[in-house]
């Protein structure tokens, strides 16, 4: 018993003190996956805020975007054109989703809409695999001008290695968030989108229909997904296995709240870093791979004490 407690609560710190460079490396790894979790969660929050849809397909949109890019390139389309076409595809997807799904399911219960996005999820998997094939693919990292290679630092007596692609991922994620912030705060459409979260009437008074807003929001989420897909694909393969990883956006959302953009980012980083730390320092105690479930437990424990999330308001129940 004591041994286990020691393993859980004491040993990690001994190890950290013993090899601080490893600790920093793990932190960095966690930070990078956290960034990606955050991006998936971000796409999710965009949609949830504006249309109340719990979009289960956000993870698949990430894969689908990346797959389209790789697939188009493989079919002989120049990389830059493929990228532009992919943006077009994401727009088409947003338009199609609004046309086929949202418009017909307006005013349904949340769970029905949630189920519809699971259906969309399946459709996209089948569609993507049918067009581009099911086998994992390699991202065309250098072709679209992303750096490869790594920066190596001498830190605390050890060597910390930062992949350049990871660094650019973080930078691009930052830029994306900044861009979205500008879009939402400074543009007319952006303000309308913010209004729609609170009041549909107000949004329509700006002169945009609800349908248009849905398309825009899903498109924005699609762009976020495409970016995420490129980054993620550059780190590993482009394959539908990613959709399972994308479920980690859920605990991120739990931490950050379903409607908060800063929450998504902070939540993503917390989940990313903590799962890597847990895996590295606690994983060996029970045979490893605990990062597959650790974030969910973390979110659960968190929920127990704060059911409304990190940035959510306290719910007063009324009768």
């Amino acid at each position, binding site marked *: 018993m004591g041994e286990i407690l020691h393993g859980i609560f004491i040993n990690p710190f001994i190890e950290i003190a013993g090899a601080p460079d490893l600790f920093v490396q793990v932190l960095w790894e966690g930070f990078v996956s956290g960034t990606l979790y955050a991006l998936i969660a971000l796409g999710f929050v965009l949609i949830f805020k504006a249309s109340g849809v*719990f979009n289960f397909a956000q993870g698949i949109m990430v894969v689908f975007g990346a797959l389209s890019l790789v697939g188009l390139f493989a079919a002989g389309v120049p990389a830059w054109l493929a990228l532009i076409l992919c943006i077009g595809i994401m727009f088409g997807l947003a338009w199609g989703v609004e046309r*086929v*799904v949202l418009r*017909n*399911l307006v005013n*349904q*219960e*949340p*769970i*029905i809409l*949630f*189920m*519809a996005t*699971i*259906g*969309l*999820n*399946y*459709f*996209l*998997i*089948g*569609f993507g*695999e*049918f067009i581009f094939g*099911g086998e994992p693919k390699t991202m065309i990292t250098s072709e679209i001008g992303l750096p490869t290679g790594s920066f190596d630092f001498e830190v605390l007596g050890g060597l910390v290695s930062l992949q350049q692609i990871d660094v650019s991922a973080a930078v691009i994620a930052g830029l994306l968030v900044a861009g979205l912030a500008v879009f939402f705060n400074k543009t007319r459409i952006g303000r309308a989108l913010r209004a729609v979260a609170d009041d549909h009437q107000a949004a329509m008074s700006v002169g945009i229909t609800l349908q248009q807003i849905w398309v825009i929001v899903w498109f924005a989420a699609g762009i976020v997904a495409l970016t995420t897909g490129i980054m993620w694909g550059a780190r590993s393969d482009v394959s539908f296995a990613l959709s*399972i990883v994308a*479920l980690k956006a*859920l*605990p991120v959302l*739990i931490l950050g709240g*379903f409607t908060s953009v800063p929450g998504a980012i902070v939540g993503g980083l917390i989940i990313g870093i903590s799962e890597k730390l847990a895996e590295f320092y606690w994983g060996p105690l*029970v*045979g*490893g*791979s*605990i990062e*597959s*479930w650790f974030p*969910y*437990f973390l*979110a*659960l424990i968190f*929920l*127990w004490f704060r*059911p409304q999330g990190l940035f959510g308001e306290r719910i007063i*129940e009324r*009768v």
Partner: protein
Amino acid sequence: MLYRETGQFKTSYSADQAVFPIRQDLVGIWLILAFMFLVVPFTFNDFWLNSIMIPTLIFALAAIGLNILTGYAGQLSLGTGGFMGCGAYACLKLTTFFPDLNIIIVILMSGFFAAAVGFIFGLPSLRIKGFYLAVATLASQFFLEWAFGRIAWLYNYADSGAIEVPTRRIFDIAITGPHASSMTRYLVVLSIVVVLTWVASNLVRGRFGRSWMAVRDMDIAAELIGIRLLSTKLTAFSISSYYCGVAGAMMVFLWLGAAEVESFDINHSFLVLFMVIIGGLGSLLGAFLGAAFIWNLPILLRSAFGQTIDAASVEHISFMVVGALIIFFLIVEPHGFARMWQIAKEKLRLWPFPY
């Protein structure tokens, strides 16, 4: 049109509250049961029994389990695969420890382990609702998957890391294992599913079912009229998991014959969830309809395209079709096949009048 109800009157509450108060329905269900028990085993070939009948029944049972939790008690769960796995691994361990115990009893007992696990993962439901709760069930799903893969004791330290089903006999008839005939396994599965469905129908019609639905429809009002939320939700979690557990045990022991962690992964959770949604939340009939539809649709597609396109493409197309159909059905009738049947039945009862 087919319903002629004139002269069917009830002189007691038990007759009025029967599962099938209309005589035509009662006759119908007996005909179906007779067909399933007396005709199917002797006329259907191995492919039909193994690939269609047995899995449909097993998934229907899992769908009933999930339906109790999600459809009746209103608690969204994405952990069905994990609970099914609990049943399967429990069954393996039980039959290892008690090799002489009647395998049917073992299968029925293994559900209790799933129920216990479901109980534990249902605890957060006191404070967590809706989509937030889905995360709790995801936690159980991934944790259980992890456990099934990592804890070698669970799969008897088999080199393959998989469950290998031993042969078990009752009255010298092989029920499980490679020697068991499709017919035997079908009949065992059918019997268990029929009995458990009957039990489920008893539950949902009575006090427990009403409490679940009350919690689902308006938990605050339910609490104020004296329903204990936690115990109601926990019973739903336990019973639901029991059903999933038994379905999982049957899946491995009476259908697949062997199973790995992948048999209980999150995709199975989704598969069963689809069955429930497409079949109809809050309906036992819906569980059967949903299971039959979702399970057999790809088979149907495969046999339709099988000759012209390669297997992988058929797989992809079936994914697309399933996805599109889910959306289609949600648009046409968000409450699933069961509601469609209900509406059709209502129309038949009112025929020729529209109302």
